């Protein structure tokens, strides 16, 4: 069959590619190493995969494209990459913001509260010991094990899965060797000479859209570098459910997702290593905090059960796995420790976040809320911890909101009503280009105060939109979508409280986690009714708690013990099965403080 010749203009470069007739542009881009974000998994409904045809015969428009253009009045050269089928040679411009290539951000000092976790002990997951060995110690594994055990006073010692510790050519350099031991029980490697000054660990937060990582020196317990990048899985769908749908569609798809995640991690690790001036092969331990779906994909476990009711994970805790087995290219003998899933859609990112806050062992009553798409909530009362996920959706990431955008430079992040207009502040003090989550929340709070909005969510004075900044307005429909997202979180919190027989006034503290959760103004959260009106000092920002928790797991034996026990302490509450969800959800749709009033019936 004749191949079609294509040229892609991207990031100031020209990339050549070929396609078979009838292939979609998005697939060809993926194959050409230019994966793009497919927000609706290429179903032609989100209209966000727009590329520009610079030259060549314009292919016939699909119905999805026609409809979108009627709505947006786009020029005919703007086309949906997921819909366009190729039959003729074309030159196509791919906008930078559509690309999924690693856009690596240095995270140093980025999130409040996610600096150094408070460790109760310093006991890294892998350690190195210098040993004096005789030639015959190295000849047999049993002998080597018993020598190491007795020298280090270990009760037991097994050999790591990629054995090969038996050395054939034992030269003088092996007299002094360095043993790499995982969790004081597993010999991972024996290195010739004295290498105990360098051993690294990687803390990973594997999220649906973003992967964050931190590289640690496990000798000193020091952070060497932190960064984040896009999760390349987004090429297969933007949200968790789309990923699940893709994974179960065809055998082999799960593997594709896993490879995409591994690629993101590998790219990120390279960057971190370069930044810190170290080698990736020095990394012997990884602690991974991934949400439930990511944990499954990473560990090669089927995700089917997470895609339909009753939404059960295939596992909670998982044995540590050799990095090689899951395809991580670090030191070939590295081991991976995963933070446990807690039930339903509440995954390892939440368990590690909880560990970071120290909440499982604190006295008192605490709420932990991750203000993300999944809206996970944990409530600690006495010895019990209840968890749930509320599926708030991506409205507060700006998705589906007419003037919404991710928290990037130019996004309005805060507003104040001055009596005749909104005064706003943008990220990076740039010209405003849209509103990010905290900005949206801020507009709601100030609109309520200024009388633009009724508690029912209706815009007042017969208007149909709220003008925020030149060219940026919040429509009635936008507000409805935000109400749904807020209601999911609010009703989730309240139902967990009532399941535990607790009133919000009895809370000793409330942790806010996640990037959005770190950028909101607590006063405005209370004003719109997202949070109960607790005194300011009880609202604690936990930042990227998942990553900080993963770091803690790398460094502290106590934290790892806690992690192992956590699934036993936790009870997952399936909100859908609670009889009063609908009533609570409908009540929670109202804006303002009223929802948290006592004796509200």
């Amino acid at each position, binding site marked *: 069959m004749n191949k079609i010749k294509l040229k892609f203009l991207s990031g100031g470069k020209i990339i050549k590619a070929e396609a078979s007739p009838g292939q979609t542009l998005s697939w060809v881009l993926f194959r050409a190493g230019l994966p793009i974000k497919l927000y609706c*998994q290429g179903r*032609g*409904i989100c209209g966000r995969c727009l590329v520009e045809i610079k030259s060549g015969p314009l292919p016939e428009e699909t*119905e*999805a494209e026609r409809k979108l253009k009627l709505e947006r009045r786009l020029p005919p050269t703007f086309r949906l990459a997921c819909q366009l089928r190729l039959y003729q040679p074309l030159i196509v411009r791919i906008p930078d913001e559509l690309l999924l290539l690693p856009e690596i951000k240095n995270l140093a000092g980025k999130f409040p509260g996610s600096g150094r976790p408070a460790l109760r002990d310093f006991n890294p997951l892998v350690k190195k010991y210098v040993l004096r060995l005789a030639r015959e110690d190295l000849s047999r594994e049993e002998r080597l094990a018993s020598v190491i055990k007795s020298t280090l006073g270990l009760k037991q010692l097994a050999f790591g899965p990629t054995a090969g510790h038996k050395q054939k050519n034992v030269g003088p350099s092996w007299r002094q060797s360095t043993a790499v031991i995982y969790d004081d029980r597993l010999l991972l490697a024996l290195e010739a000479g004295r290498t105990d000054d360098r051993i690294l660990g990687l803390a990973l937060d594997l999220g649906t859209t973003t992967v964050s990582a931190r590289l640690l020196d496990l000798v000193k317990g020091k952070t060497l570098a932190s960064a984040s990048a896009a999760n390349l899985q987004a090429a297969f769908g933007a949200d968790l*459910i*789309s990923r*699940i*749908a893709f994974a*179960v569609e065809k055998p082999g798809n799960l593997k594709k997702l896993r490879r995409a995640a591994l690629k993101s991690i590998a790219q990120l690790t390279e960057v971190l290593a370069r930044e810190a001036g170290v080698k990736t092969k020095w990394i012997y331990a990884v602690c991974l905090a991934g949400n439930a779906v990511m944990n499954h994909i990473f560990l090669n476990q089927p995700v089917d059960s997470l*895609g*339909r*009711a*009753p939404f059960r994970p295939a596992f909670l805790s998982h044995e540590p796995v050799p990095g090689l087995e899951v395809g991580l290219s670090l030191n070939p003998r590295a081991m991976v420790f995963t933070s446990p899933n807690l039930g339903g859609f509440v995954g390892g990112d939440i368990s590690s976040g909880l560990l970071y806050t120290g909440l499982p062992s604190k006295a008192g009553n605490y709420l932990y809320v991750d203000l993300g798409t999944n809206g996970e909530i944990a409530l600690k009362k006495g010895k019990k911890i209840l968890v749930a996920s509320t599926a708030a959706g991506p409205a507060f990431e700006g998705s589906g909101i007419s003037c919404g955008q991710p928290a990037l430079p130019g996004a309005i992040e805060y507003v104040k009503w001055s009596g005749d207009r909104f005064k706003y502040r943008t990220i990076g003090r740039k010209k405003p280009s849209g509103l990010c989550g905290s900005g949206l929340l801020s507009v709601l709070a100030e609109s309520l105060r200024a009388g633009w909005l009724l508690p*029912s*969510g*209706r815009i007042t004075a017969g208007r*149909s939109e709220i003008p925020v900044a030149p060219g940026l307005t919040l429509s*009635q*429909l936008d507000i*409805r979508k935000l*109400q749904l997202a807020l209601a999911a979180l609010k009703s989730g919190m309240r139902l967990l409280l009532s399941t535990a027989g607790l009133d919000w006034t009895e809370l000793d503290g409330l942790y806010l986690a996640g990037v959005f959760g770190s950028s909101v103004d607590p006063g405005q959260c209370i004003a719109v009714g997202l949070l109960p009106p607790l005194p300011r000092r009880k609202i604690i920002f936990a930042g990227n708690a998942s990553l900080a928790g993963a770091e803690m797991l790398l460094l502290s034996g106590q934290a790892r013990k806690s992690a192992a026990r956590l699934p036993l302490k936790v009870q997952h509450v399936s909100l*859908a*099965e609670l009889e009063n969800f*609908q009533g609570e*959800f*409908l*009540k929670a*749709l*109202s804006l303002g403080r009223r929802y948290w009033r006592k004796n509200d019936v």
Partner: protein
Amino acid sequence: MKPEPNNHLQALSQAIVQGLVDEAGPLAEKAVAAGMKPLQVIEQACVPAIEEVGRLWEAGDYFLPELIAGAEAMKAAMTVLQEALKSSGQSLKSAGRVVIGTVEGDIHDIGKNLVASMLRASGFEVIDLGADVKVERFVETAEREKADIIALSALLTTTMLNQKRVVELLVSRGLKDKFKVMVGGAPVTEKFAREIGADGYGESAVQAVSVARSLLAGRGGNHD
């Protein structure tokens, strides 16, 4: 003020529009007690009121709580009026019989409940199978109940495919012409509905009513 028939109708109509669930029933009783015909009350107060609720929803004035309250107030009034009709030996002609549910694997039922309420409020008989309903059960119930419409709700991109499976089962059993299939739920689109061979798609609970009506507009009817 003297209890004028028109005042009763107006008060009832307002109670429904404002979603005053506790007042709608007693107001309907008063209207009947004042000597008005139940059918007249339905046609002149209830139907215009629920249509007004729908209009306010479409205009963006009303949101879910107001819509639900309106539908429930309507239900309270209709319970009273149907009782009154029955005791005078009459009965209300059903607008159609609908089997509704959220498809297998999906527990989101708020939207489905809303559609059911609005359909009921608009004179449809609704058999609600709940959430996470197996494909088979939709078809079996529709056959047993001699339904006109099968209404399917799905909120997940994974489970919307089960709407397709219902249509397929109908086709394979040669029942496709016997029932109209109507689909909805946030991820469902008109295009998807057409692709899977559904007969109708509604974006909201208010639209669900007009779609159901138009689906049955030219029909002979499966039941009497």
